[in-house]
């Protein structure tokens, strides 16, 4: 019997049991949909992240001090240990082109003229070259020691009247103190400039550590501001050095983006920071260790985490697929028993074992493929909605879609094999006698 005929006949019997067939495919649908949705999301997330690394930050190495046992992304478990003196000394080390601190300053509000908007974590205090020239859409980098700032488009556009170069903004620091700054540059993107900031778009104002962060630490004792979500007032350094701003994070620049230069800068900086000569060393103790990572490495780390998460979810989805295939096998077995008489009739009128095998296998494969196709559709939709929701560029990993359909066929074959074999072996005399 040719495959087309098998298909026709199998499809007939599937349609004969609509509800049962639908429920049978559901397991496959869910399994495949889950795989596709998460793989799509994962790919979109990766594309979103990779899309944010600019080649010009490849000279940068990002450092923080943390318990080496703590795993995680940038700044995981970081403690503020680096003093301005440390930064200066690191910058003077061989193979290090520049070194500066990085800290976020908790704010309450920002005013442009009469207009005030609420904003927390609004200031990022760092070195001038943190905003690379190529990242500036307008203006210039801020200068050390000046009350100047570079803002990103999100920050500039949050006022009725957009911020332009030369505008003076008033920032209300958490605690109520006010400070002013002059906008000297506007970046070309609202996304983070480094892994410390995270990847999402949000209003950010970049200012020099001196005077802003120094004043912060000295005046208010809030030195622990950092890259994101840590709570305020964790000023551990208060007891250790009054008025002495300690940074949670440090950024060093290597002479070039070459791996050898990066490694040299990294080694040189760690060697100094971990030696007794540095201020940081007195706080490092036995528990803390300085970690230096390039954004590529951090990204890799993040991707590894993502991949792990994805594999985990794909694993769960695979289990659901397995359950789905057991469902198919179960239904097929029931179906074989239920249709014993039909099998007997077919064999009595000349159906070969392989014809019967083919019919039941085809049926299982149809269920598997329908499940895979519906699951793929649903998964792509889920991936699309998810990517929309978290605002990521949508990337459809097409090879996975092909794979999903392949898996559907395979699951159908595997699940259908034993029942079909049972059907094929049915003895026609017994089958015809079967009620």
């Amino acid at each position: 019997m040719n495959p087309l005929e098998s298909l026709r006949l199998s499809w007939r019997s599937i349609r004969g049991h609509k509800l049962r067939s639908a429920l049978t495919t559901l397991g496959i649908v869910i399994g495949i949909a889950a795989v596709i949705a998460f793989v799509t999301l994962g790919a979109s997330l990766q594309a979103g992240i990779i899309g944010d690394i600019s080649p010009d930050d490849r000279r940068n190495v990002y450092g923080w001090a943390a318990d080496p046992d703590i795993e995680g992304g940038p700044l995981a478990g970081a403690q503020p240990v680096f003093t301005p003196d440390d930064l200066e000394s690191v910058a003077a080390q061989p193979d290090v082109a520049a070194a500066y601190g990085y800290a976020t300053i908790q704010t309450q509000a920002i005013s442009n003229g009469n207009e005030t908007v609420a904003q927390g974590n609004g200031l990022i205090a760092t070195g001038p070259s943190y905003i690379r020239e190529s990242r500036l859409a307008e203006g210039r980098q801020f200068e050390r020691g000046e009350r100047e700032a570079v803002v990103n488009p999100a920050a500039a556009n949050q006022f009725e009247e957009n911020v332009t170069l030369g505008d003076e903004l008033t920032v209300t620091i958490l605690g109520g103190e006010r400070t002013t700054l002059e906008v000297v540059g506007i970046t070309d993107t609202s996304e983070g400039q480094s892994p410390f900031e995270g990847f999402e778009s949000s209003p950010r104002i970049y200012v020099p550590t001196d005077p802003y962060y120094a004043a912060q630490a000295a005046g208010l004792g809030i030195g622990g501001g950092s890259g994101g979500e840590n709570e305020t007032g964790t000023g551990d350094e208060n007891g250790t050095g009054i008025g002495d701003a300690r940074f949670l994070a440090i950024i060093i620049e290597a002479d070039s983006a070459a791996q050898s230069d990066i490694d040299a800068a990294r080694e040189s900086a760690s060697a100094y920071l971990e030696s007794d000569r540095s201020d940081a060393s007195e706080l490092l103790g036995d528990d803390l260790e300085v970690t230096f990572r390039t954004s590529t490495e951090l990204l890799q780390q993040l991707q590894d985490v993502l991949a792990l998460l994805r594999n985990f979810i794909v694993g769960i989805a695979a289990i659901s697929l397995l359950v789905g295939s057991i469902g198919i096998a179960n239904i097929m077995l029931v179906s074989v028993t239920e249709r014993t008489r039909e099998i007997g009739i077919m064999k009595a009128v000349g159906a070969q074992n392989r014809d019967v095998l083919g019919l039941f296998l085809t049926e299982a494969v149809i269920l598997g493929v329908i499940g895979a196709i519906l699951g793929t559709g649903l998964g792509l939709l889920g991936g699309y909605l998810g990517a929309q929701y978290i605002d990521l560029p949508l990337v459809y990993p097409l090879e996975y879609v092909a794979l999903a359909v392949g898996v559907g066929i395979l699951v159908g074959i595997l699940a259908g094999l034993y029942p079909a074999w049972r059907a094929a072996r049915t003895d026609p005399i017994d089958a015809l006698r079967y009620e």
Partner: protein
Amino acid sequence: MARETAVALENVRKTYRIGEPVHALDGVSLAVPRGSYTAIMGPSGSGKSTLMNLVGCLDTPTAGEVVVGGRPVGALGDRERTRLRGTEVGFVFQTFNLMPRLNALENVALPQLFQGIDRAERRERARDLLERVGLGDRADHLPNELSGGQRQRVALARALVNDPAIVLADEPSGNLDTDTEADILDLFDEFHAAGTTMLVVTHERHVADRADRIVHLLDGKIERIEDLEGDDASGSAADPGRGTEPASDADADSETGSPSRHREADSE
């Protein structure tokens, strides 16, 4: 003109071994000439169905030989036997055994599907046969939309679709009322007249009387063979007394047409 043998059984035994061995057939020899019409009678459990299963290539004998279409069934492999079953014999069952989700036309065409005949040809052949059994207008009805008699006619059309050497019917009218039974038996006569070899199991005398001869089975053995061909030889219905059993008038009537038509077919 010597008749070819459509089916031959030579000293056939069939023993079922489930606990105490049951000799369902115990040394049966029988030749069924091509174009003949044979009835098999016997009490329940005498081995009639067992015999049909052997001739129908559904089963193999424990001993002896069953020859269908010139080939010994017992010696064939499963695949060959299945092929023979599909092409050389046509089965008509007491319970019709139609595929419930296929319509009349598809049911009739089913045996050809397994012979790899293409769809258009299958459908044409099936339609033709449905026409001949008087169901031309029921082609797309499902079995459960047909009456018992109509179902059996579909089954008969299906049995004939591959032009088998022999049509086997195991109590074909057992589930039918008297009128529909007569319809089916008339069709048997008609196809027999057109040259089809018929082997019909029944336990009803008036059904058996339509045949050329009656094979009486008892406890797995042939008790006797009753030849009704006498009517045939005389070529007249006026001589009903030649058979071992006297036939009723009605039976004699039904016999009148068929032998002569039979001869026509035979001489083709």
